[in-house]
C-alpha cells in the first residue's frame, strides 16, 4: 500500500489521473502499458460481469463459506467491486454476508 503511494509521488507526469481514475488501476496491473489513458480510454478491457447476476444466485448467505471466500482477498479483506465486477446491489448483500461470517468465525477478520 505504502509502495503504491510512493510510486505515485515519483510520477509527476500524470497529474490528472490521480482522482477519479485511481479506481481502475488495480485490476489491470500493468500501469505503464495503458497508453490510451489520456485519449479517452481506448485500451481494451474485458467486460466484467456480476457473478451473482449471471449464475442467478439470489441468496448470498453467510453460511456459504466457499462462495464468500471468492470475494475475500488473501489477507481477509473484502475485494472491491471494481476488481470482481459484482454489481452494486449484490456487493451490498455480499458485504453483509461476509461481515456476518466473520462474526461467527467462518471467515477471518484479518489473516496472519
Amino acid at each position, binding site marked *: 500500500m505504502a509502495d503504491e503511494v510512493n510510486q505515485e509521488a515519483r510520477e509527476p507526469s500524470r497529474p490528472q489521473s490521480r482522482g477519479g481514475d485511481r479506481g481502475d488501476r488495480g485490476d489491470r496491473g500493468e500501469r505503464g502499458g495503458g497508453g490510451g489513458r489520456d485519449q479517452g480510454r481506448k485500451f481494451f478491457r474485458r467486460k466484467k460481469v456480476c457473478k451473482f*447476476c449471471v449464475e442467478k444466485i*439470489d*441468496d448470498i448467505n453467510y453460511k456459504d463459506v466457499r462462495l464468500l471466500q471468492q470475494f475475500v482477498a488473501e489477507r481477509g479483506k473484502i475485494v472491491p467491486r471494481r476488481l470482481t465486477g459484482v454489481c452494486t*446491489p449484490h456487493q451490498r448483500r455480499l458485504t453483509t454476508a461476509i461481515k456476518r461470517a466473520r462474526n*461467527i*468465525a*467462518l471467515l477471518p477478520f484479518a489473516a496472519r
Partner: protein
Amino acid sequence: MQKSYEVMFIVRPDFTEEDMDKVISTLQTHATNAGATVANVEKMGKRRLAYDVKKFQEGQYVLFTLHSDGKAIHELERRLRVTEPVIKFITVRTDEEHQRLEKIRKIRAAHTKRAPAESTPAEAETPAVSA
C-alpha cells in the same frame, strides 16, 4: 409478532457428542419455554475457526432455525451468553430475506411464463435480479 430467526452458535471442541446433545436440548427447552418454536436443529459438525475464540482453534457449529418474537430471542441470547460451553453465537433474522427471495422467484416465474420462447432466460431474469 412472529418472525423467523437463525441462531448459530459454536460449542467448544472438546465436548463429546453426548455433551453436545445435552447442551442443545437444554437450549432448545429454554427457547420453547421462552415462547419460541424451534423449527430445525442442525449440527454442522466440527470446523476450524478462522481465528482463535477463547483460545480454541476449532469449534462445533450448531444452527437453530426458530419462529419467535424478539423477546424470546433476547432470552435465548442471554442463555447462550451464560452457557459456558458456547463460545460464540450469532442471531440473524431471516423472514425479510425469505420474503425477498420469494418475490424474486415469483417475478422470475412470471417472466418465464409470459415469454418462454422469444426471450432468452438471461434477458428475462435481469430485471428480476435488480428489482
